[in-house]
């Protein structure tokens, strides 16, 4: 997982509320066997419409999504975060997130920034006035800046620390490397190993 401290990039104003995970990525894409390559699946239904905001030239290469309230509700699929990340988003801003989505985002290195709804409307206005303008999300200061506008966002300390350090769940556990190695040193010889492959001592079952 990449460390994040500030993200500067094109912001997409997504003026929709209640964007559930089915909208973010429809169920048919869950059959895939990879954890990457979901960029084409993101908002798949909406993207069929040429007018949809992600299809507009000004917003290509965007890395910040500014959405309405209740983003990421519904089914717990982790794929929703993968699709946003694969598309290139590093930050999603909303005034309210689905709980599981927010948890998954933190674990996968996608910054879910909680911004008051009035401030979201102000960001929308600024970026819509000049489509494609960059905004800056500063995780250290917990602020979002677009042009002259700077507003605060909320994120819990633990998730913020993990994002700043670039630590996913596995990365966190690997910090205990010494303790794990120490445990393995004392693992009894009778405990099972699958390799090398052994044949049964006696014939039969």
């Amino acid at each position, binding site marked *: 997982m990449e460390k994040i401290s500030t993200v500067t990039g094109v912001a997409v104003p997504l003026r929709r509320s209640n964007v559930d995970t089915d909208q973010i990525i429809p169920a048919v894409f869950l059959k895939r066997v*990879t954890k990457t390559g979901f960029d084409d699946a993101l908002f798949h239904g909406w993207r069929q419409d040429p007018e949809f905001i992600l299809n507009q030239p000004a917003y290509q290469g965007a890395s910040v999504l500014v959405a309405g309230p209740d983003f990421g509700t519904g089914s717990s699929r982790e794929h929703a975060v993968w699709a946003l990340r694969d598309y290139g988003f590093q930050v999603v801003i909303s005034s309210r997130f689905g709980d599981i989505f927010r948890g998954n985002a933190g674990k996968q290195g996608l910054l879910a920034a909680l911004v008051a709804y009035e401030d979201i409307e102000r960001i929308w206005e600024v970026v819509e006035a000049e489509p494609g303008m960059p905004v800056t999300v500063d995780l250290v200061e917990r602020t979002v800046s677009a042009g002259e506008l700077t507003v605060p966002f909320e994120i819990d300390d633990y998730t913020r620390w993990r994002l700043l350090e670039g630590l996913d769940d596995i990365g966190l556990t690997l910090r205990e490397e010494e303790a794990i190695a120490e445990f393995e040193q004392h693992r009894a010889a009778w405990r099972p190993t699958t390799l090398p492959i052994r*044949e049964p001592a006696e014939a*039969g079952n």
Partner: protein
Amino acid sequence: MTASSERPRTLAEKVWDDHLVKQGEDGTPDLIYIDLHLVHEVTSPQAFDGLRMAGRPVRRPDLTIATEDHNTPTLDIDKPIADLTSRTQIETLRRNAAEFGIRLHSLGDKEQGIVHVVGPQLGLTMPGITVVCGDSHTSTHGAFGAMAFGIGTSEVEHVLATQTLPLKPFKTMAINVEGTLRPGVTAKDIILAVIAKIGTGGGQGYVLEYRGSAIRALSMDGRMTICNMSIEAGARAGMVAPDETTFAYLKGRAHAPEGEDWDAAVEYWKTLPSDEGAEFDAEVFIDADALEPFVTWGTNPGQGVSLSDTVPDPATIDDQHERAAAERALEYMDLRPGVPLKEIKVDAVFMGSCTNSRIEDLRAFASIVAGKRKADGVRVMVVPGSARVRLEAEAEGLDKVFEAFGAEWRFAGCSMCLGMNPDQLAPGERCASTSNRNFEGRQGKGGRTHLVSPLVAAATAIRGTLSSPWDLEQAVTEAEAK
């Protein structure tokens, strides 16, 4: 659960304590070491992909083993798999196993089979270890006195990368089954009765420990049947304390310890049973003498009754949610209250799944059907849990018994336990199944499942209606009286 050795501890607590890499503080989870990681094609692809993205290796390929089971066909196993999604999953597992250096038993290999049949059969599952797999029926392995539970795909990746899992301690529940089972009553009937008693959510948050004289009297295959279905009671895991039956089963298996290691292991294993005075967070009592062959009538494993009963009337259920669930279930199952279960006709009998597909299960089924013909119009499938079980059954001539009976003798896999491979029920078809889930559509869209033991499956295949071996004896006695 703490590492204090003064306080009497349960089996589950002992295994937990002995795998503590780091004790959690201030509400953070404990870090638990995993002794054995079983892998199959459905829940592993994204885990391997995650490792690849992060550039991480598998920490302990030598504690990891993979097999193909959910998507595999049980006929024509030498031909390419027809369904594209299934084929992709299998091919992905093969590529991942090769890339990460993981032992894989593929279709056609003699150790291939349902992951929960393969582990014990190789002697990899043993007392006092921790076992995980991206599959909820990992609870099966608890029959050896192991702590075994199912995990999700991100946890699969976590174990592959670190051989550990951050976990919060579980509560413990003792399931005391005292007495002697009557002939014709089996381990499957015990667990169906347990789930009917505590409900599909009754075990939530608990590790169940099955205890008592009826459990001690069971073989390992029977104990596995019981632990397998712990998850259907909502529990994360089920366990049985290891004893001489456990040791005898393990001795001489491919990966069981040998020589001095064996002696050291047995010495340790004997310390594992719950201490006298150890406290469980909850206790349940089941009278084994009173048990009869059991069957489910609904669409969750807790909706079961004795086979001699009638289909229950939802109107008599007090709890409004349960009543509504029962009404929905009867509608889906196309059953009317008050109908004797023994009058219900079936279209199919499925003998297989990780609940009941080991050699003893096949022997039990064969003991009833030997020398008989199946009922007309009933399709009977017998599917061994692993290629090795298949070979063993054939060495004993069981395949001939099944074929003479009119059953289809298949290759190893999950088969009709779930609609993920070609073995499925057609809409509206009714099946007596030795598997573990009777959810709507589990065995194929619109299919209707009655969960039963191998003996009940066999008797049902003979009579064409839900039946137990007792009904067969009765038929014989009646015929003799004439």
